């Protein structure tokens, strides 16, 4: 009796501890961003921001070109994710559904491509872009970001495509659909959660990238948000309020996207898997 109570209790207690561990850094970021400077550098931490201030957000966003950075980041990220999803959808369909010579080679190839350590190749990429007179432009960034997320997208989507029962597609084709129609009407809707959860990875990768944009785009008009965030350390020194406000602003779009998409993606994933 006692044992079973304990048996029921410990998973919940552990879960609560884990929850706090997961959330605290995120909470602390937001809390610091809203606290007046006096509370931030108090001898004893102020756990909950009582005097809420927006001053730090003002400092963080009053930086020249802030909105240009926002627009650039959004443009590059959304385009890169869209391109990679389209390219990957086609490729993953072939890899998951068709038999052909060299299929294994393709799969291994994409796995290798996934391992590319981009940070160490930066100077090579810089010289290519420089010699093509494409510096200070969003085009090479979008293309390279597309490539950074493409292998993962293909390989993950392949799993989702494979999880859609083949019978569904076949029965649709028996009903007179062409293969393309079957794909559009039957498979694509079932793939939606897969597309969403795969796109998350793309979003976070492209949104975060800063080593490449740092060397490629020196002009403010072509910079992105990660540069703005990393410049805070040098420009604002130990102004943790402004730094955390900037971090919060940077993280919020991704946090919202994850919380929104992840629920549907995970439930979709499990539902799809159970059905299969």
């Amino acid at each position, binding site marked *: 009796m006692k044992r079973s109570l304990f048996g029921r209790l410990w998973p919940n207690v552990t879960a609560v501890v*884990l929850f706090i561990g997961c959330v605290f850094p995120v909470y602390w970021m937001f809390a610091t961003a809203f606290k007046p400077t006096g509370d931030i550098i108090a001898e004893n931490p102020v756990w909950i921001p009582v005097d809420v201030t927006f001053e730090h957000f003002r400092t963080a966003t009053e930086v020249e070109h802030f909105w240009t950075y926002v627009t650039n980041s959004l443009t590059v990220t959304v385009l890169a994710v869209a391109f990679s999803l389209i390219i990957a959808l086609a490729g993953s369909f072939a890899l998951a559904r068709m038999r052909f010579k060299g299929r294994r080679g393709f799969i291994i190839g994409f796995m290798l491509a996934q391992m590319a350590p981009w940070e160490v190749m930066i100077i090579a990429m810089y010289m290519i872009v420089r010699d093509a007179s494409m510096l200070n432009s969003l085009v090479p960034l979008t293309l390279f970001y597309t490539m950074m997320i493409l292998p993962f997208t293909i390989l993950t989507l392949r799993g989702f495509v494979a999880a859609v029962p083949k019978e569904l597609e076949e029965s649709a084709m028996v009903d007179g659909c062409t293969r393309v129609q079957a794909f559009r009407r039957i498979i694509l809707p079932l793939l939606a959660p897969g597309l969403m959860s795969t796109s998350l990875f793309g979003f976070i990768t492209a*949104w975060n990238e800063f080593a490449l944009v740092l060397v490629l785009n020196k002009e403010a008009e072509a910079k992105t948000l990660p540069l703005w965030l990393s410049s805070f350390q040098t420009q604002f020194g130990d102004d943790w309020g402004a730094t955390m406000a900037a971090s919060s602003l940077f993280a919020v779009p991704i946090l919202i996207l994850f919380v929104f998409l992840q629920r549907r993606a995970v439930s979709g994933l499990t539902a799809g898997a159970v059905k299969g």
Partner: protein
Amino acid sequence: MTVQTERPPSGPVDVRKTDDEGPGRPTPRAASRAGALVPYLLLLPACVATVLLLGWPLLKDVLLSFQNLNMAQLIQHVTEWNGIDNYKEVLTGEDFWRVTLRSILFTAVNVALTMVLGALVGLLLARLGRRMRFTLMMGLVLAWAMPVVAATTVYQWLFAQRFGVVNWTLDKLGWHSMADYSWTSSQMSTFFVVTVLIVWMSVPFVAINLYAATTTIPSELYEAAALDGAGSWRSFTTVTLPFLRPFLYATTFLEIIWIFKAFVQVYTFNQGGPDRLTEILPVYAYIEGVGNQHYGMGAAIAVLTILILLGLTAYYLRIVLKQEEDEL
């Protein structure tokens, strides 16, 4: 470069040839031949992108690694070949090997921690009630979603020497020497913070994926195991674990790649310091190449870094090769 050599024989050319064989009315045979073209066509955009956007920089990097490329050469666009000098210098120096060993240990420790913790959390998720599971899942998603640049900044603040909440807590817990402790001051303390950060960011991916996988285990398998008189441990080792094995392999592979390449976390937190003691391979390549403006050398280190990463993942790639063979 490896990526390119691994490319399969170029499909479209072969197929087009067979396509030309059947002129006139398409016979059923010819139609199926034309159908054989489809997978290659579908893969064509991905391959073109890979060759152009990854293959080309990679090739360029390999070429640079055989050059003496410093400030002057870069500014004046001069190409000065110097054979294998860069490789000779890197491979005969002590630094590279020390950094390599450090990188491998760093990856091993972080991947092991992430996988063990992630798997445990994943299994815990499966045991929890609905509401609790939802709560923990939200927490995990928040940690997972934190962009790495923001997360690293937040960890710098958490572990700040002055007014950092971690130091304050340790002090209050009675560990007074930690009151003004500088976490960036030593190799181990820097690695400690970076490890906490990486594990914190990586566990959610493993846990959520694993949990999703456990929900797909057919309950009949457990029932059968129970009929055989298996206890909870036995049914875990005979049912759960074998079922999850492919998921575990795949996530371990991904984590090895991601953690090995953890450039931003290490570089942003302490720039590979103190005293270059926390440089892992990507950071080392960056500091020697871009930082020190010794670009040819940096390219050589980059090529070696790629080779080492290939070595680390070779085992998994072999498994995949076999697996795909079975499937076909």
